[in-house]
Protein backbone atom coordinates (compact mmCIF):
# COMPACT_ATOMS: atom_id res chain seq x y z
CA UNK A 1 0.00 0.00 0.00
CA UNK A 2 1.32 3.45 -0.86
CA UNK A 3 1.69 6.25 1.66
CA UNK A 4 -0.96 8.95 1.72
CA UNK A 5 -0.01 12.39 0.34
CA UNK A 6 1.25 15.19 2.58
CA UNK A 7 -0.94 18.04 3.76
CA UNK A 8 -1.08 21.29 1.77
CA UNK A 9 1.80 23.39 3.21
CA UNK A 10 -0.35 26.48 3.79
CA UNK A 11 -3.00 24.49 5.64
CA UNK A 12 -0.27 22.73 7.64
CA UNK A 13 1.23 26.13 8.47
CA UNK A 14 -2.10 27.48 9.70
CA UNK A 15 -2.54 24.38 11.92
CA UNK A 16 1.02 24.65 13.24
CA UNK A 17 0.66 28.40 13.88
CA UNK A 18 -2.66 27.78 15.64
CA UNK A 19 -0.92 25.25 17.91
CA UNK A 20 1.89 27.66 18.80
CA UNK A 21 -0.73 30.33 19.58
CA UNK A 22 -2.59 27.81 21.75
CA UNK A 23 0.68 27.03 23.55
CA UNK A 24 1.14 30.74 24.34
CA UNK A 25 -2.49 31.14 25.40
CA UNK A 26 -2.49 28.10 27.68
CA UNK A 27 1.06 27.99 29.06
CA UNK A 28 2.45 31.53 28.51
CA UNK A 29 5.28 29.87 26.53
CA UNK A 30 5.55 28.90 22.91
CA UNK A 31 6.82 25.54 21.69
CA UNK A 32 10.55 24.85 22.05
CA UNK A 33 11.85 21.39 21.19
CA UNK A 34 15.32 22.43 22.35
CA UNK A 35 13.99 22.59 25.90
CA UNK A 36 12.80 18.96 25.62
CA UNK A 37 16.17 17.82 24.31
CA UNK A 38 18.04 19.82 26.97
CA UNK A 39 16.05 18.29 29.84
CA UNK A 40 16.50 14.79 28.41
CA UNK A 41 20.23 15.39 27.91
CA UNK A 42 20.70 16.58 31.50
CA UNK A 43 18.67 13.61 32.85
CA UNK A 44 20.94 11.30 30.83
CA UNK A 45 24.08 13.06 32.12
CA UNK A 46 22.76 12.88 35.67
CA UNK A 47 22.23 9.13 35.23
CA UNK A 48 25.66 8.55 33.68
CA UNK A 49 27.83 11.24 35.20
CA UNK A 50 27.39 10.86 38.94
CA UNK A 51 27.85 14.21 40.67
CA UNK A 52 29.67 15.83 37.78
CA UNK A 53 26.64 17.49 36.07
CA UNK A 54 25.82 19.35 39.29
CA UNK A 55 29.23 21.01 39.10
CA UNK A 56 28.50 22.34 35.61
CA UNK A 57 26.29 25.41 35.98
CA UNK A 58 24.47 24.98 32.68
CA UNK A 59 23.41 21.42 33.52
CA UNK A 60 22.65 22.16 37.17
CA UNK A 61 20.22 24.95 36.28
CA UNK A 62 18.24 22.48 34.14
CA UNK A 63 18.01 19.77 36.78
CA UNK A 64 20.02 18.55 39.75
CA UNK A 65 18.85 14.94 39.52
CA UNK A 66 17.45 12.56 36.91
CA UNK A 67 13.95 13.08 38.29
CA UNK A 68 14.11 16.87 38.51
CA UNK A 69 15.36 17.07 34.92
CA UNK A 70 12.63 14.72 33.68
CA UNK A 71 9.78 16.20 35.74
CA UNK A 72 9.39 19.17 33.42
CA UNK A 73 6.58 19.90 30.93
CA UNK A 74 9.20 20.11 28.14
CA UNK A 75 9.72 16.35 28.49
CA UNK A 76 5.97 15.76 28.12
CA UNK A 77 5.99 17.96 25.04
CA UNK A 78 8.87 15.97 23.50
CA UNK A 79 7.11 12.68 24.23
CA UNK A 80 3.90 14.09 22.77
CA UNK A 81 5.77 15.17 19.64
CA UNK A 82 7.18 11.66 19.18
CA UNK A 83 3.77 10.10 19.81
CA UNK A 84 1.89 12.49 17.51
CA UNK A 85 4.32 11.91 14.67
CA UNK A 86 4.15 8.14 15.20
CA UNK A 87 0.36 8.13 15.17
CA UNK A 88 0.12 10.11 11.94
CA UNK A 89 2.92 8.10 10.30
CA UNK A 90 1.03 4.92 11.15
CA UNK A 91 -2.30 6.32 9.87
CA UNK A 92 -0.63 7.52 6.67
CA UNK A 93 1.32 4.30 6.13
CA UNK A 94 4.72 5.89 6.62
CA UNK A 95 5.65 4.15 9.91
CA UNK A 96 8.65 2.18 8.73
CA UNK A 97 12.14 1.60 10.11
CA UNK A 98 14.35 3.15 7.43
CA UNK A 99 16.96 5.79 6.62
CA UNK A 100 15.64 8.56 4.37
CA UNK A 101 18.42 9.54 1.99
CA UNK A 102 19.04 10.47 -1.62
CA UNK A 103 19.50 7.41 -3.86
CA UNK A 104 23.18 8.14 -4.49
CA UNK A 105 24.08 8.48 -0.79
CA UNK A 106 25.17 5.50 1.29
CA UNK A 107 23.43 4.81 4.58
CA UNK A 108 26.73 5.32 6.41
CA UNK A 109 27.30 8.78 4.89
CA UNK A 110 23.70 9.77 5.62
CA UNK A 111 23.97 8.75 9.26
CA UNK A 112 27.35 10.46 9.66
CA UNK A 113 25.92 13.69 8.23
CA UNK A 114 22.88 13.37 10.49
CA UNK A 115 25.13 12.98 13.55
CA UNK A 116 27.33 15.92 12.50
CA UNK A 117 24.28 18.09 11.79
CA UNK A 118 22.76 17.08 15.11
CA UNK A 119 25.89 18.04 17.05
CA UNK A 120 26.01 21.44 15.29
CA UNK A 121 22.31 22.08 15.92
CA UNK A 122 22.60 20.95 19.57
CA UNK A 123 25.53 23.29 20.22
CA UNK A 124 24.00 26.11 18.14
CA UNK A 125 20.56 25.90 19.78
CA UNK A 126 22.18 26.14 23.22
CA UNK A 127 24.24 29.12 22.05
CA UNK A 128 21.13 30.82 20.57
CA UNK A 129 18.94 29.95 23.61
CA UNK A 130 16.44 28.12 21.43
CA UNK A 131 15.97 26.08 18.28
CA UNK A 132 14.02 26.79 15.11
CA UNK A 133 10.74 26.12 16.95
CA UNK A 134 11.62 28.20 20.01
CA UNK A 135 13.24 31.16 18.29
CA UNK A 136 11.47 31.26 14.91
CA UNK A 137 8.02 29.66 15.35
CA UNK A 138 7.53 31.02 18.86
CA UNK A 139 9.88 34.03 19.15
CA UNK A 140 9.77 35.58 15.69
CA UNK A 141 5.99 35.18 15.52
CA UNK A 142 5.70 37.61 18.46
CA UNK A 143 8.10 39.88 16.55
CA UNK A 144 10.89 39.23 19.07
CA UNK A 145 14.10 40.84 17.88
CA UNK A 146 16.15 37.91 19.20
CA UNK A 147 13.90 35.43 17.40
CA UNK A 148 14.39 37.24 14.08
CA UNK A 149 18.16 37.52 14.57
CA UNK A 150 18.45 33.76 15.10
CA UNK A 151 15.99 32.93 12.29
CA UNK A 152 17.70 35.16 9.71
CA UNK A 153 21.16 33.94 10.69
CA UNK A 154 19.99 30.31 10.49
CA UNK A 155 18.19 30.63 7.16
CA UNK A 156 20.90 32.84 5.67
CA UNK A 157 23.63 30.32 6.53
CA UNK A 158 21.57 27.36 5.32
CA UNK A 159 20.84 29.06 1.97
CA UNK A 160 24.48 30.16 1.60
CA UNK A 161 25.34 26.49 1.89
CA UNK A 162 23.06 25.71 -1.07
CA UNK A 163 25.97 24.57 -3.25
CA UNK A 164 27.21 22.20 -0.54
CA UNK A 165 23.64 21.01 0.00
CA UNK A 166 23.29 20.27 -3.71
CA UNK A 167 26.50 18.25 -3.69
CA UNK A 168 25.44 16.28 -0.64
CA UNK A 169 21.82 15.72 -1.47
CA UNK A 170 21.73 15.33 -5.26
Amino acid at each position, binding site marked *: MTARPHLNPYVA*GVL*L*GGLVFLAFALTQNGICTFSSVRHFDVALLQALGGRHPNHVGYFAMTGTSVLSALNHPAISMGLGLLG*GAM*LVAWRHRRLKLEVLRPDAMTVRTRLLLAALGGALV*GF*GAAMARGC*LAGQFLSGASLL*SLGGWIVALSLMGTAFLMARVVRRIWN
Partner: protein
Amino acid sequence: MLPLESAALKHPLLVNHLLALGLGLGFGAVLEWAGLGDARRQAAALDRRDFSSLKVLLTAVLTTCLLAFLGSSLGWLDLSRLHVAPSHVWPGVLGGMLMGLGLAFSGHCLSTALAAAGSLKLDGLVFLLGSLVGLWLFGESLWSFKGFWNGSVAQHSSLPSAFGWSVGFTVVAFTLAGLALFLLMERQEGTKPLASRTFLWIGSMAVAASLMVWIKGQPTPEQTWKHIRAENQPLLDNRSVFINALDWAKVNLDPKLGLITVDLRPAPAFEAFHLDGARLWVPGAEKKLLAELENAADPSAVVLVADDEALAVQVWQRLRAQKVSNLYILEGGMAAWKQQFSSIHLDHFDLAKPSAEALATFPPEAFTQRLKIEPSRAASPLYCTAH
Protein backbone atom coordinates in the same frame (compact mmCIF):
# COMPACT_ATOMS: atom_id res chain seq x y z
CA MET B 1 -8.15 37.16 29.83
CA LEU B 2 -5.56 34.81 28.33
CA PRO B 3 -2.91 33.52 28.84
CA LEU B 4 -4.07 30.97 31.37
CA GLU B 5 -2.30 31.30 34.75
CA SER B 6 -1.65 27.65 35.55
CA ALA B 7 0.18 28.71 38.73
CA ALA B 8 -3.22 29.67 40.14
CA LEU B 9 -4.65 26.17 39.51
CA LYS B 10 -4.76 23.34 42.04
CA HIS B 11 -2.13 21.09 40.45
CA PRO B 12 -0.10 23.45 38.20
CA LEU B 13 2.68 20.99 37.35
CA LEU B 14 0.27 18.21 36.41
CA VAL B 15 -1.81 20.63 34.32
CA ASN B 16 1.34 21.90 32.59
CA HIS B 17 2.47 18.32 31.86
CA LEU B 18 -0.93 17.44 30.37
CA LEU B 19 -1.09 20.65 28.32
CA ALA B 20 2.47 20.10 27.05
CA LEU B 21 1.67 16.49 26.15
CA GLY B 22 -1.41 17.56 24.19
CA LEU B 23 0.40 20.39 22.41
CA GLY B 24 3.32 18.05 21.62
CA LEU B 25 0.94 15.45 20.17
CA GLY B 26 -0.60 18.08 17.90
CA PHE B 27 2.79 19.51 16.95
CA GLY B 28 4.25 16.10 16.06
CA ALA B 29 1.11 15.11 14.15
CA VAL B 30 1.14 18.26 11.99
CA LEU B 31 4.91 18.07 11.34
CA GLU B 32 4.60 14.47 10.15
CA TRP B 33 1.38 15.12 8.21
CA ALA B 34 3.08 18.03 6.41
CA GLY B 35 6.03 15.78 5.57
CA LEU B 36 8.58 17.75 7.58
CA GLY B 37 9.98 14.58 9.12
CA ASP B 38 11.47 13.80 5.71
CA ALA B 39 14.91 15.49 5.64
CA ARG B 40 14.92 15.40 1.83
CA ARG B 41 12.15 18.02 1.79
CA GLN B 42 14.24 20.43 3.90
CA ALA B 43 17.19 19.85 1.59
CA ALA B 44 14.96 20.46 -1.45
CA ALA B 45 13.93 23.82 0.01
CA LEU B 46 17.57 24.85 0.50
CA ASP B 47 18.26 23.70 -3.06
CA ARG B 48 15.28 25.89 -4.16
CA ARG B 49 13.40 23.03 -5.80
CA ASP B 50 10.53 22.44 -3.37
CA PHE B 51 9.73 25.13 -0.82
CA SER B 52 7.01 23.16 1.00
CA SER B 53 8.81 23.07 4.36
CA LEU B 54 9.61 26.78 4.24
CA LYS B 55 6.00 27.57 3.32
CA VAL B 56 4.79 25.58 6.34
CA LEU B 57 7.15 27.41 8.71
CA LEU B 58 6.45 30.89 7.36
CA THR B 59 2.68 30.33 7.32
CA ALA B 60 2.89 29.09 10.91
CA VAL B 61 4.85 32.16 12.06
CA LEU B 62 2.41 34.46 10.28
CA THR B 63 -0.60 32.65 11.76
CA THR B 64 0.70 32.82 15.34
CA CYS B 65 1.64 36.47 14.83
CA LEU B 66 -1.81 37.43 13.56
CA LEU B 67 -3.69 35.42 16.20
CA ALA B 68 -1.56 36.82 19.04
CA PHE B 69 -1.72 40.47 18.01
CA LEU B 70 -5.39 40.29 17.01
CA GLY B 71 -6.09 38.67 20.40
CA SER B 72 -4.24 41.53 22.07
CA SER B 73 -6.07 44.20 20.02
CA LEU B 74 -9.42 42.70 21.01
CA GLY B 75 -8.41 42.53 24.68
CA TRP B 76 -8.42 38.71 24.84
CA LEU B 77 -4.68 38.11 25.26
CA ASP B 78 -2.16 39.94 27.46
CA LEU B 79 1.03 39.88 25.39
CA SER B 80 3.17 41.14 28.24
CA ARG B 81 2.61 37.86 30.11
CA LEU B 82 4.00 35.70 27.31
CA HIS B 83 7.57 34.49 27.63
CA VAL B 84 10.16 34.28 24.88
CA ALA B 85 13.91 33.75 25.04
CA PRO B 86 15.87 36.94 25.78
CA SER B 87 17.57 38.70 22.86
CA HIS B 88 21.38 38.38 22.87
CA VAL B 89 22.64 39.60 19.51
CA TRP B 90 25.98 37.86 18.87
CA PRO B 91 25.24 34.55 20.58
CA GLY B 92 22.01 34.56 18.53
CA VAL B 93 23.91 35.19 15.29
CA LEU B 94 26.53 32.50 16.03
CA GLY B 95 23.94 29.99 17.28
CA GLY B 96 21.82 30.62 14.18
CA MET B 97 24.84 30.08 11.91
CA LEU B 98 25.71 26.78 13.61
CA MET B 99 22.11 25.61 13.33
CA GLY B 100 22.04 26.68 9.66
CA LEU B 101 25.15 24.58 9.00
CA GLY B 102 23.62 21.65 10.86
CA LEU B 103 20.39 21.99 8.86
CA ALA B 104 22.30 22.07 5.56
CA PHE B 105 24.32 18.93 6.42
CA SER B 106 21.52 16.87 7.90
CA GLY B 107 18.24 18.28 6.55
CA HIS B 108 16.87 18.32 10.09
CA CYS B 109 16.22 20.67 12.97
CA LEU B 110 15.36 19.36 16.43
CA SER B 111 11.57 19.33 15.87
CA THR B 112 11.67 17.62 12.48
CA ALA B 113 14.22 15.10 13.80
CA LEU B 114 11.88 14.20 16.67
CA ALA B 115 9.02 13.82 14.16
CA ALA B 116 11.30 11.65 11.99
CA ALA B 117 12.31 9.53 14.97
CA GLY B 118 8.62 9.13 15.82
CA SER B 119 7.98 7.68 12.38
CA LEU B 120 10.98 5.32 12.89
CA LYS B 121 13.40 7.14 10.56
CA LEU B 122 16.90 6.31 11.77
CA ASP B 123 18.41 9.52 10.37
CA GLY B 124 16.18 11.48 12.77
CA LEU B 125 17.23 9.31 15.70
CA VAL B 126 20.96 9.63 14.89
CA PHE B 127 20.53 13.41 14.50
CA LEU B 128 19.02 13.53 18.00
CA LEU B 129 21.95 11.54 19.42
CA GLY B 130 24.30 14.03 17.75
CA SER B 131 22.36 16.93 19.27
CA LEU B 132 22.75 15.40 22.75
CA VAL B 133 26.53 15.36 22.19
CA GLY B 134 26.50 18.97 20.91
CA LEU B 135 24.53 20.13 23.90
CA TRP B 136 26.87 18.26 26.27
CA LEU B 137 29.88 19.92 24.62
CA PHE B 138 28.21 23.32 25.03
CA GLY B 139 27.56 22.78 28.73
CA GLU B 140 31.09 21.54 29.38
CA SER B 141 32.77 24.39 27.49
CA LEU B 142 30.47 27.28 28.49
CA TRP B 143 32.90 28.43 31.23
CA SER B 144 35.34 29.52 28.50
CA PHE B 145 32.88 31.87 26.72
CA LYS B 146 30.30 32.67 29.40
CA GLY B 147 30.91 36.42 29.06
CA PHE B 148 30.18 36.25 25.33
CA TRP B 149 27.06 34.11 25.86
CA ASN B 150 25.58 36.45 28.46
CA GLY B 151 26.68 39.59 26.66
CA SER B 152 25.41 41.78 23.81
CA VAL B 153 21.89 42.09 25.20
CA ALA B 154 19.78 43.78 22.54
CA GLN B 155 18.68 47.32 23.43
CA HIS B 156 15.19 46.50 22.21
CA SER B 157 13.41 43.21 22.70
CA SER B 158 10.94 43.49 19.80
CA LEU B 159 10.98 44.52 16.15
CA PRO B 160 8.41 47.34 16.67
CA SER B 161 10.49 48.97 19.41
CA ALA B 162 13.75 48.43 17.46
CA PHE B 163 12.37 50.13 14.32
CA GLY B 164 10.23 52.64 16.19
CA TRP B 165 7.15 51.37 14.34
CA SER B 166 3.73 50.71 15.82
CA VAL B 167 2.87 47.06 16.42
CA GLY B 168 0.01 47.29 13.89
CA PHE B 169 2.22 48.67 11.12
CA THR B 170 4.88 46.02 11.79
CA VAL B 171 2.27 43.25 11.59
CA VAL B 172 0.91 44.59 8.26
CA ALA B 173 4.45 44.95 6.84
CA PHE B 174 5.35 41.41 7.97
CA THR B 175 2.14 39.99 6.46
CA LEU B 176 2.71 41.67 3.10
CA ALA B 177 6.39 40.66 3.06
CA GLY B 178 5.39 37.07 3.89
CA LEU B 179 2.82 36.95 1.07
CA ALA B 180 5.37 38.38 -1.37
CA LEU B 181 7.82 35.68 -0.33
CA PHE B 182 5.18 32.98 -0.89
CA LEU B 183 4.57 34.32 -4.42
CA LEU B 184 8.32 34.26 -5.12
CA MET B 185 8.59 30.68 -3.89
CA GLU B 186 5.61 29.58 -5.98
CA ARG B 187 7.09 31.31 -9.00
CA GLN B 188 10.40 29.51 -8.47
CA GLU B 189 8.51 26.21 -8.29
CA GLY B 190 6.68 27.10 -11.51
CA THR B 191 3.17 27.10 -10.03
CA LYS B 192 0.43 29.71 -10.22
CA PRO B 193 -0.55 30.50 -6.63
CA LEU B 194 -3.13 33.12 -7.59
CA ALA B 195 -5.11 30.34 -9.26
CA SER B 196 -5.15 28.35 -6.01
CA ARG B 197 -8.26 28.86 -3.91
CA THR B 198 -6.46 27.82 -0.69
CA PHE B 199 -3.69 30.38 -1.25
CA LEU B 200 -6.11 33.18 -2.07
CA TRP B 201 -8.36 32.40 0.88
CA ILE B 202 -5.54 32.19 3.43
CA GLY B 203 -3.80 35.24 1.93
CA SER B 204 -6.94 37.41 2.06
CA MET B 205 -7.67 36.34 5.63
CA ALA B 206 -4.10 37.23 6.64
CA VAL B 207 -4.25 40.70 5.07
CA ALA B 208 -7.67 41.40 6.61
CA ALA B 209 -6.48 40.27 10.06
CA SER B 210 -3.31 42.36 9.87
CA LEU B 211 -5.28 45.46 8.85
CA MET B 212 -7.62 44.87 11.76
CA VAL B 213 -4.62 44.73 14.13
CA TRP B 214 -3.41 48.04 12.71
CA ILE B 215 -6.81 49.76 12.83
CA LYS B 216 -7.78 48.50 16.32
CA GLY B 217 -4.32 49.23 17.76
CA GLN B 218 -2.96 47.74 20.98
CA PRO B 219 -4.67 48.28 24.33
CA THR B 220 -3.71 51.41 26.26
CA PRO B 221 -2.45 51.09 29.86
CA GLU B 222 -5.83 52.40 31.04
CA GLN B 223 -7.64 49.59 29.16
CA THR B 224 -5.19 47.00 30.50
CA TRP B 225 -5.72 48.30 34.06
CA LYS B 226 -9.40 47.34 33.76
CA HIS B 227 -8.34 43.72 33.16
CA ILE B 228 -5.83 43.58 36.02
CA ARG B 229 -7.76 45.78 38.46
CA ALA B 230 -9.23 42.89 40.50
CA GLU B 231 -5.74 41.54 41.19
CA ASN B 232 -3.98 44.85 41.86
CA GLN B 233 -6.49 47.28 43.42
CA PRO B 234 -6.33 45.44 46.83
CA LEU B 235 -2.62 46.38 47.03
CA LEU B 236 -3.67 50.04 46.96
CA ASP B 237 -6.72 49.54 49.20
CA ASN B 238 -4.78 47.76 51.95
CA ARG B 239 -1.92 50.26 51.44
CA SER B 240 0.72 47.51 51.18
CA VAL B 241 2.47 49.42 48.37
CA PHE B 242 2.72 52.63 50.39
CA ILE B 243 6.13 52.82 52.06
CA ASN B 244 7.32 55.19 54.75
CA ALA B 245 10.35 57.48 54.54
CA LEU B 246 12.55 55.20 56.67
CA ASP B 247 11.97 52.27 54.29
CA TRP B 248 13.15 54.37 51.37
CA ALA B 249 16.14 55.78 53.26
CA LYS B 250 17.31 52.31 54.35
CA VAL B 251 17.18 50.85 50.83
CA ASN B 252 18.86 53.97 49.44
CA LEU B 253 21.87 53.34 51.68
CA ASP B 254 22.44 49.85 50.25
CA PRO B 255 24.39 50.20 46.95
CA LYS B 256 23.59 46.57 46.01
CA LEU B 257 19.86 47.28 45.80
CA GLY B 258 18.41 48.95 42.72
CA LEU B 259 16.23 51.93 43.60
CA ILE B 260 14.58 54.26 41.10
CA THR B 261 12.81 57.26 42.59
CA VAL B 262 10.34 59.08 40.36
CA ASP B 263 9.27 62.55 41.48
CA LEU B 264 5.80 63.42 40.17
CA ARG B 265 5.71 66.96 41.60
CA PRO B 266 5.92 70.09 39.41
CA ALA B 267 9.41 71.10 38.21
CA PRO B 268 9.81 74.15 40.57
CA ALA B 269 9.08 71.96 43.63
CA PHE B 270 11.53 69.34 42.33
CA GLU B 271 14.23 71.96 41.76
CA ALA B 272 13.72 73.36 45.26
CA PHE B 273 14.21 69.96 46.91
CA HIS B 274 14.24 66.33 45.83
CA LEU B 275 15.39 63.01 47.20
CA ASP B 276 18.83 61.61 46.40
CA GLY B 277 18.91 60.28 42.82
CA ALA B 278 15.26 61.19 42.10
CA ARG B 279 14.21 61.89 38.53
CA LEU B 280 11.55 64.36 37.44
CA TRP B 281 8.46 62.91 35.70
CA VAL B 282 8.60 64.83 32.43
CA PRO B 283 7.05 63.89 29.06
CA GLY B 284 9.02 60.94 27.67
CA ALA B 285 10.19 59.84 31.14
CA GLU B 286 7.75 56.93 31.16
CA LYS B 287 9.09 55.45 27.93
CA LYS B 288 12.68 55.88 29.18
CA LEU B 289 11.85 54.26 32.51
CA LEU B 290 10.15 51.25 30.84
CA ALA B 291 13.11 50.74 28.48
CA GLU B 292 15.54 50.99 31.40
CA LEU B 293 13.60 48.42 33.44
CA GLU B 294 13.29 46.13 30.41
CA ASN B 295 17.04 46.08 29.83
CA ALA B 296 18.16 46.01 33.48
CA ALA B 297 20.07 42.88 34.44
CA ASP B 298 18.77 43.00 38.02
CA PRO B 299 15.32 44.03 39.29
CA SER B 300 14.90 47.47 40.85
CA ALA B 301 12.26 49.02 43.07
CA VAL B 302 10.43 52.02 41.65
CA VAL B 303 9.18 54.55 44.21
CA LEU B 304 6.75 57.29 43.22
CA VAL B 305 6.90 60.58 45.12
CA ALA B 306 4.02 63.08 44.96
CA ASP B 307 2.28 65.47 47.30
CA ASP B 308 -1.03 64.58 45.64
CA GLU B 309 -1.82 60.92 46.48
CA ALA B 310 -4.47 60.67 43.73
CA LEU B 311 -1.79 61.48 41.13
CA ALA B 312 0.60 58.92 42.62
CA VAL B 313 -2.13 56.25 42.52
CA GLN B 314 -2.98 57.13 38.90
CA VAL B 315 0.65 56.77 37.80
CA TRP B 316 1.03 53.58 39.88
CA GLN B 317 -1.95 52.04 38.06
CA ARG B 318 -0.58 53.10 34.69
CA LEU B 319 2.88 51.64 35.35
CA ARG B 320 1.44 48.48 36.90
CA ALA B 321 -0.62 47.98 33.73
CA GLN B 322 2.69 48.01 31.90
CA LYS B 323 4.08 45.22 34.07
CA VAL B 324 6.34 47.34 36.27
CA SER B 325 6.93 45.23 39.39
CA ASN B 326 8.34 46.25 42.80
CA LEU B 327 6.35 49.48 42.42
CA TYR B 328 5.72 51.63 45.51
CA ILE B 329 4.41 55.05 46.56
CA LEU B 330 6.11 57.20 49.22
CA GLU B 331 3.34 57.64 51.79
CA GLY B 332 2.44 61.27 52.42
CA GLY B 333 4.87 62.60 49.82
CA MET B 334 7.43 65.28 50.69
CA ALA B 335 5.41 66.72 53.57
CA ALA B 336 5.53 63.39 55.42
CA TRP B 337 9.22 63.01 54.51
CA LYS B 338 10.15 66.33 56.09
CA GLN B 339 7.97 65.57 59.11
CA GLN B 340 9.68 62.17 59.57
CA PHE B 341 13.16 63.68 59.79
CA SER B 342 12.22 66.92 61.59
CA SER B 343 13.53 65.54 64.91
CA ILE B 344 17.06 64.90 63.55
CA HIS B 345 19.58 67.44 64.78
CA LEU B 346 22.88 65.97 63.60
CA ASP B 347 25.75 67.99 62.13
CA HIS B 348 25.97 67.77 58.32
CA PHE B 349 22.55 66.07 58.07
CA ASP B 350 21.47 65.80 54.46
CA LEU B 351 17.65 65.69 54.29
CA ALA B 352 17.77 64.36 50.70
CA LYS B 353 19.96 61.42 51.71
CA PRO B 354 19.62 60.46 55.39
CA SER B 355 22.75 58.71 56.67
CA ALA B 356 22.99 55.43 58.60
CA GLU B 357 23.78 57.54 61.66
CA ALA B 358 20.48 59.40 61.22
CA LEU B 359 18.53 56.17 60.74
CA ALA B 360 20.10 54.71 63.90
CA THR B 361 18.24 57.33 65.93
CA PHE B 362 14.91 55.66 65.12
CA PRO B 363 13.62 52.61 67.05
CA PRO B 364 13.53 49.33 65.01
CA GLU B 365 9.70 49.26 65.07
CA ALA B 366 9.64 52.53 63.08
CA PHE B 367 10.88 50.60 60.01
CA THR B 368 7.91 48.86 58.35
CA GLN B 369 10.08 47.16 55.69
CA ARG B 370 7.35 46.97 53.10
CA LEU B 371 9.74 47.74 50.26
CA LYS B 372 10.96 44.44 48.83
CA ILE B 373 12.77 43.87 45.55
CA GLU B 374 11.68 40.61 43.99
CA PRO B 375 12.47 39.20 40.57
CA SER B 376 9.68 39.86 38.08
CA ARG B 377 7.36 36.85 37.54
CA ALA B 378 7.49 37.45 33.83
CA ALA B 379 11.15 36.64 33.19
CA SER B 380 11.25 38.20 29.78
CA PRO B 381 8.07 40.04 28.90
CA LEU B 382 8.27 41.14 25.30
CA TYR B 383 5.54 43.73 25.20
CA CYS B 384 4.59 46.40 27.61
CA THR B 385 1.18 47.65 26.60
CA ALA B 386 2.51 51.13 25.82
CA HIS B 387 4.43 49.85 22.77
